[in-house]
């Protein structure tokens, strides 16, 4: 007897993957899994897809607009089955099937779950000595991106002085984060160049502990910032921010290479907020009963060889939910996660 397989049958045989989070990791994994002929459902807490990348103006090192990039990743968004504005409220697993109920009472039964809940930007208010939320012109890297997108507030000054402060909330025991957020050095250099392009008469200083320009073309970008855009890099860690009588900001650092204290006035201070484990990752880890690592990111079962597999069978993870990553790394990680899900469902 020949086994006849009609379309209805294949539809019913399609295994379902639930993806939590529609940032670039979730989107990329969703598209890859759909191409592998899985039924994919995505839930997203916000009302848009693209996550943090969507709120960024341009990427490093090539100054690409983020919007077309997200569109490229998502492909035809109509094909994607995304439930916006919902988070999982209940989850249980029985015989390899995950039953998830969202806060909007939507029931989803899935053969595998992929967590791509991303990261949270470090809340710069916590470094009180830097004056975020106290002084008007102390802003974060995210604020600067929105200025690039929506325009700068009027200052009435032509030659502005900008200071970029690296490692805000990263590599800082006082903030409780010992790890490096990876992307801020390159972001600072990118944003410094954009500031110089936006305000050709401005002066830009970057205060760093180490310049971690690890990726392809990053070091070249750094050299370009120095030579073509005249951006100054000072090896120093900011102690505190004060305000001068004329409302400009006064900073005090040690110029570590001449071993002398140094002070200067600035018009804008940009704090390079790092990545922190997202609150969503933590609540989802509790919901599914999986562990977090020492830094609060989702724990992977084996480093190097199973970076996308959690300790729970059928539960996978992609993107910055496991630690800071660049866009390139996040997309690669999402593809590798899709493959891990495929291998698991294929052998099930």
């Amino acid at each position, binding site marked *: 007897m020949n086994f006849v397989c009609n379309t209805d049958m294949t539809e019913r045989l399609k295994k379902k993957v639930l993806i939590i989070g529609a940032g670039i990791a979730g989107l990329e994994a969703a598209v890859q899994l759909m191409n592998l002929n899985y039924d994919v459902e995505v839930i997203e807490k916000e009302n848009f897809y693209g996550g943090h990348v969507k709120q960024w103006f341009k990427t490093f090192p090539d100054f690409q607009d983020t919007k077309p990039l997200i569109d490229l990743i998502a492909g035809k968004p109509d094909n994607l089955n995304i439930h916006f504005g919902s988070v999982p409220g209940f989850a249980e697993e029985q015989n390899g099937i995950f039953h998830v109920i969202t806060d909007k009472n939507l029931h989803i039964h899935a053969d595998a779950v992929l967590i791509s809940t991303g990261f949270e930007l470090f809340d710069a208010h916590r470094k009180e000595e830097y004056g975020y939320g106290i002084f008007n012109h102390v802003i974060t890297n995210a604020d600067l991106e929105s200025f690039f997108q929506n325009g700068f507030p009027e200052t009435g000054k032509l030659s502005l002085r900008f200071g970029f402060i690296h490692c805000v909330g990263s590599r800082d025991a006082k903030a409780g984060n010992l790890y490096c957020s990876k992307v801020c050095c390159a972001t600072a250099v990118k944003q410094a160049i954009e500031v110089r392009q936006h305000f050709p008469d401005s002066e830009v*200083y970057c205060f760093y502990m180490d*310049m971690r320009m690890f990726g392809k073309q990053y070091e070249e970008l750094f*050299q370009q910032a*120095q*030579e073509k855009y*005249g951006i*100054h*890099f000072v*090896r120093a860690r900011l102690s505190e921010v004060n305000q001068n009588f004329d409302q400009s900001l006064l900073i005090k650092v040690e*110029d570590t*290479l*001449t071993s*002398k*204290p*140094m*002070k*200067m*006035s600035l018009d804008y201070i940009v704090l390079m907020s790092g990545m922190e484990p997202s609150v969503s990752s933590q609540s989802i880890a509790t919901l599914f009963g999986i562990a977090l690592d020492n830094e609060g990111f989702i724990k992977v079962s084996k480093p190097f060889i199973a970076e996308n597999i959690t300790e729970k069978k059928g539960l996978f993870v992609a993107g910055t939910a496991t630690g800071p990553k660049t866009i390139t790394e996040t997309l690669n990680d999402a593809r590798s996660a899709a493959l891990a899900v495929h291998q698991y469902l294929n052998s099930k």
Partner: protein
Amino acid sequence: MSDKKFGFSIHSDRQHNLDLADKRLYRKIALMEPSLQRCIFCGGCASTCTASAFTQMSFRLISLHLRRGNLKEVKSYASKCMLCGKCTMVCPRDINIRHVIVLLKKEFSGNEF
């Protein structure tokens, strides 16, 4: 009896104040030798310097003090250089250090700082 006087003395301010720093010479040299701007102060130049074994010469410090506007220091360091060019050969950022020093020596000849 010692000559020491008791009481308080006033120390001069040893902070760099970048608001007041005179960066004209740095800008002038950077225009003539733009590679100077690529310096990352690694100290490769200073470690290979033939003059540094016997004098205070350090191109890393010249590069820094030039940016901070401390021209006295720059002049003093630059006067120690013998223009052997070893530093230029080791610089990872490929700065034409020898040319920078030649330009500085020209600037300083006849000028008091």
